């Protein structure tokens, strides 16, 4: 790993200022993704300064505030997964946090870090140690190697800026499905708008020096149920082949409102609004759920080697919605 300057910031303002002034600074929350990126040197430019915000205590909280659940950016995934408040008011988020990585990584990995993490495309993350990095489209190369190469875990909804990597976060689909708002040092961003398909060293719309401060999840009323499901090869320490978060508001036996979001299918977490629309105003039944799952995948554009993911996506939507109404 290349060395860098390390600064422990006492506040987000201070951290933001250091980052803004740096040539190529990086923020350290839990560090679990950052360490991998630095170790394998996946970025074209070396990081010159690491600004740690991990120890800022006021960023570690889970509390009810008016009609929202507020989660501090540096709250660990373990704390979210264990929180009775989160389980009660946004079950899918607690489930997604619990499904992430491993106990040790959840102990330090934070919610902000989880939604800001880099993708896991094996071309993009190929370590420099064995023959040097691979210059993929994301790194300014001429093409995406996954499209013509091995893309079994890549996008089934086409490329963005010619890159078919997928967003690997488990909590991101849950936040999108919950219609969460992400407060940064500069603004409030809807979870739907937070992720970006831009190439380069970022998977979010955050600008240089901008840092996630707090996540705000609207508190749901009675009759709202949510669930999260993940399909992965290994039952621990693994990224999702596909994940799904869904939330349903029932009123008088009919669906008043519904949101569905898939992870692992596209460069960004993918809201399935048309599928959710199928449910609205209807009484839930197995047939209806299946219809929604089919609608969700109607626009899928799988690559030659990942058509199986379309089937998994349908199945996982089915399972997640079923779990919502259990």
């Amino acid at each position, binding site marked *: 790993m*290349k060395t860098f300057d390390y600064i422990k910031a006492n506040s987000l303002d201070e951290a933001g200022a250091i980052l803004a002034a740096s040539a190529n600074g990086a923020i350290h929350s839990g560090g*679990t993704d950052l*360490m991998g990126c630095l170790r394998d040197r996946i970025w074209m430019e070396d990081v010159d300064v690491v600004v740690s915000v991990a120890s800022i205590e006021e960023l570690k909280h889970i509390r009810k505030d008016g009609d929202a659940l507020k989660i501090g950016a540096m709250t660990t995934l373990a704390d979210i997964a264990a929180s009775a408040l989160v389980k009660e008011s946004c079950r899918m988020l607690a489930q997604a946090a619990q499904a992430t990585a*491993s*106990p040790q990584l959840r102990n*330090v990995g934070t919610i902000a870090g989880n939604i800001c993490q880099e993708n896991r495309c094996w071309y993009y993350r190929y370590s420099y140690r064995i023959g040097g990095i691979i210059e993929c489209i994301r790194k300014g190369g001429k093409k995406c190697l996954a499209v013509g190469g091995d893309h079994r875990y890549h996008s089934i909804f086409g490329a963005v800026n010619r890159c078919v990597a997928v967003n690997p976060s488990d909590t991101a689909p849950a936040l999108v499905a919950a219609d969460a708002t992400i407060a940064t040092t500069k603004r409030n961003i809807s979870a739907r708008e937070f992720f970006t398909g831009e190439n380069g060293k970022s998977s979010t719309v955050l600008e240089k020096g901008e840092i996630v401060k707090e996540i705000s999840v609207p508190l749901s009323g009675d009759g709202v149920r949510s669930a999260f499901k993940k399909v992965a090869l290994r039952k*621990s320490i693994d990224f999702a082949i596909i994940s799904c978060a869904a939330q349903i508001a029932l009123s008088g036996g009919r669906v008043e409102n519904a949101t569905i979001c898939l992870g692992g299918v596209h460069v960004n977490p993918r809201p399935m609004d048309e599928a959710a629309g199928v449910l609205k105003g209807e009484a839930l039944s197995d047939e209806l759920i299946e219809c929604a799952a089919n609608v969700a995948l109607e626009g899928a554009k799988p690559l030659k080697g990942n058509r199986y993911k379309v089937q998994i996506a349908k199945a996982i939507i089915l399972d997640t919605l079923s779990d919502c109404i259990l």
Partner: protein
Amino acid sequence: MSANEKVLSLTVNGEPKKLLVKPHWMLSRVLREELHHTGTKEACGEGACGACTVLIGDKAVLSCMTLALEAEGKCVETIEGLMSGKNPHPIQEAWLEEFGAQCGFCSPGMIMSAKALLLRNPNPTVGEVREAMAGNICVCSNYEHIEAAVLSAARKMRGEGA
């Protein structure tokens, strides 16, 4: 002191330590190379195997994914801190009785994960043991023995004997 070296103060197994580190050094490197606590192992370098697990406070963390400077002011416990004199910790005793170690390379990390579990949950179910240990890989595939060791250790620590 070279350009970007920094002073790190931390407590390791109850002993205060103060040393110069480079910002990019991992906690595992400092424990092993600088403090010569080689019981903590490095195996995957990616946070995917748990061999480097240590406790920071009462939490199990991966020392090969933790910058040493992040441990500033913290209490770190490694496998070397478990024995009291010549007597093994109950978890270590259980490991001996249940044959928890084959090659033994994962054992220090496994045992630290077990300790973190038993600190917060003295009476875990089989499912809770498996969940808590699921960040630690044993390529000797000794999980059934390890599970028995953790459950036995829990009984010992609750004073119920093996």
